[in-house]
């Protein structure tokens, strides 16, 4: 969520139990402005908090030109000193997936080790070789943030448009979803590169606007029911919670352009989702 709106919007998504203390809020208010100046960001987003065993990571993102693609992620342990996270590569993601198991520790230099025993040949001639994979927690953090963004970041339909140059920008004239629309999952989009080929019915595509509908809809997510959609605060705020990444909350106040998402959780994907529905 936008760092400028953080201080009233945080209350709207704190229904899931986690929030920031006054001290942290005050610190963020100061440090994010300095961050914006130092890195020359157009906007700074407060992305959320990842809980570790001994310490928590606070994550912020800076946006430069393209709202969706030109993002830089930074982390901090004390809400004041920010460090840039490396952009995740495919190799890094693969290693993290194998080696980094369990909860985050809270120490960016902590190394996860994984020894893989590979076998060559078959039967009695098989030879075993140990391969040691080491990944630092900083890298894990980078891939986790990128993965959460890829899988569960949300925007309401129409809040962002793709302009003729192909860059994604805020839609100035977005006035919010109506109350009726806000209750439907199909009016919310993944704010990440669309991955699945379009399989929508002709009826739906006839109404779609290529300038607004360039993203994947949440209603197409599998398994069905991986989102919880509720009206809170006396039905004035629509809150979406991801059941795949427990801890991700999104809010939108219908009929206003205010929306945002935040992740506050352990940074673990809920692999048990199919059993839990």
């Amino acid at each position, binding site marked *: 969520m936008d760092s400028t709106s953080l201080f009233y919007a945080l209350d709207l998504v704190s*229904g899931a*139990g986690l929030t920031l203390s006054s*001290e*942290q809020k005050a610190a963020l208010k100061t440090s994010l402005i300095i961050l914006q100046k130092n890195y020359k960001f157009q906007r700074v987003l407060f992305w959320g908090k990842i809980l570790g065993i001994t310490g928590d990571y606070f994550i912020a993102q800076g946006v430069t030109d393209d709202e969706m693609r030109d993002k830089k992620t930074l982390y901090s342990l004390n809400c004041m000193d920010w460090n840039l996270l490396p952009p995740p590569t495919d190799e890094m993601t693969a290693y993290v997936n194998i080696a980094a198991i*369990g909860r985050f520790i809270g120490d960016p230099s902590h190394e996860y080790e994984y020894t893989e025993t590979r076998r060559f040949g078959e039967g009695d001639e098989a030879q075993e070789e140990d391969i040691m994979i080491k990944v630092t927690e900083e890298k894990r953090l980078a891939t986790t943030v990128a993965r959460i963004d890829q899988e569960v970041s949300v925007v309401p339909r129409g809040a962002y448009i793709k302009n003729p140059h192909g860059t994604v920008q805020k839609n100035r004239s977005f006035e919010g979803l109506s109350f009726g629309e806000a209750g439907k999952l199909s009016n919310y989009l993944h704010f990440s590169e669309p991955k699945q080929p379009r399989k929508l019915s002709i009826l739906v595509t006839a109404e779609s606007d290529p300038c607004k509908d360039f993203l994947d809809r949440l209603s197409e997510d599998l398994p069905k029911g991986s989102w*919880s959609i509720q009206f809170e605060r006396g039905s004035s705020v629509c809150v979406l919670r991801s*059941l795949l990444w427990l801890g991700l909350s999104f809010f939108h106040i219908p009929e206003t352009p205010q929306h945002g998402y935040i992740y506050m959780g352990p940074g673990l994907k809920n692999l048990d989702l199919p059993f839990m529905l």
Partner: protein
Amino acid sequence: MKPAEEDKQTDQMATCLKAFMLKTSTKTNLNLYDHLTRLLHKILDERPENAVDVFEDMSREVKRGLMQEKQGALRDAPFSSAQQDLAELQRILFASRQGEQGDQEEELVEAPIPNVAELAFYLEQAGVGMDKDEMQRIFLALKHLVDTQPLQHCRFWGKILGTEANYLVAEVELREDEEDEEGAEETANEEEKEPNEEEEGGEVLEVVDPLPKSTHQSPPVVPKEENHTGANKYTYFVCQEPGLPWVKLPSVTPAQITIARQIRKFFTGCLSTPIISYPPFPGSEANYLRAQIARISAATQVSPLGYFQFGEEEGDDDDDGARASFEENPDFEGIPVTEMAESLSTWVHHVQHILIQGRCVWVNLAAKPEDNFEEDGDEEEKDEEPDEPEPEVGPPLLTPLSEDAEVNNTSPWSLGLSSALIPQFAISTLRSNLWPGAHAYARAKKFDSIYIGWGMKSTNYKYGFSPTTVPMAQAEYPSGPEITEALDPTLEEEQALKAALEEQRAAQEEAEGLEDEEEDD
């Protein structure tokens, strides 16, 4: 060309253009000239920054403004949104009872309303909790509960998130006389049900040919713990939103706890939802919710070491060491915050551990079956069961958290200090890693724990949750050699057999021949 003529021509062109711009659109009945006039008026009135950039938006706004006037011809149908309904419901929370001042003063002393405002204040420092507005509503809702129910003690337990609605949970102790009546009703109902089922079964047997009877002997049911003891020490009320009615949860049975340990299901927010799972869960979502609340309470309700102490009398009654009650220690001075934020041994559990059996106090089941199941087919079970099963013993009450076992190579608790900058006034915070969402705080004599989460224990981080597999289907008949299909013999085998048989026959004939000869002799 003369200037006058030129002017005339320009004028004419301008009129032409104006006429073009004044052409009314057949679709919207607007014309460009008026539209531009209005738009320029609007821009000059409002003087927006970078007007050229937002020109399109403003144009659209002007057009929309014109459209809206026309739509006003029809009156809106009265529209009642969920928002309005809820506001109506929540109005009772804010109704102050004037004119009953005398009563109110008495109630102020008696009513056991928990101080949610204080709880919210401390939790916020720990980075936990809901926004102030919601907390205030919960506060009022709890007051409403205390006003309407005969309660001895009331505490805000926490919030359980569901997929469609959430539950706010209040932990209460009913006044004893009230509870006994209700308890009596419940047991009476249960007793009534059972004989009916047996009767029906009996009729069927008389009418139809005796059906094969199942030899399955269900294991003895672990008896439920009485109200005010063990896992049923407190009663729980839940409501979905402040202002909606509070619903009392049924008391929990050991079977529900043991099955709840084996399944993982999201709550939906509707208490009557059936729980579809394997192993089958005995009850609906209300029972599941109650079982999870019991498990979470037992695992995560903590207090500073020394705040509670065992009463002297209690200790003598039970020599097992499983003392079930404790009292506040009047001499407790409070432990320094920095110490509490560093050492887990300064925190203790003050809710009884739930044993594998699903009860807090172990009950010997082996003694009972003899009374209840004196039918045939009991022998096998008796043989299998040890004569005197080893009693399950959990950690006693007020065990320090440092004794808690590590699960999944992760420490079960995370300690912290609310503020690194002003440690003098900070509070010590505790976060459960086993039950994500369970938090506790302490500062001097103040402490409390709360749970806000999905009601799920953390699972194995590597492999996730592995559900119990359904057992193999029972065979319809015992398999034996007479019904198993044999392989057809190959040609060689057949020939070998034939040869063997012939050889045998030849040998026999020979033998017979010999015998004949002997007889002849």
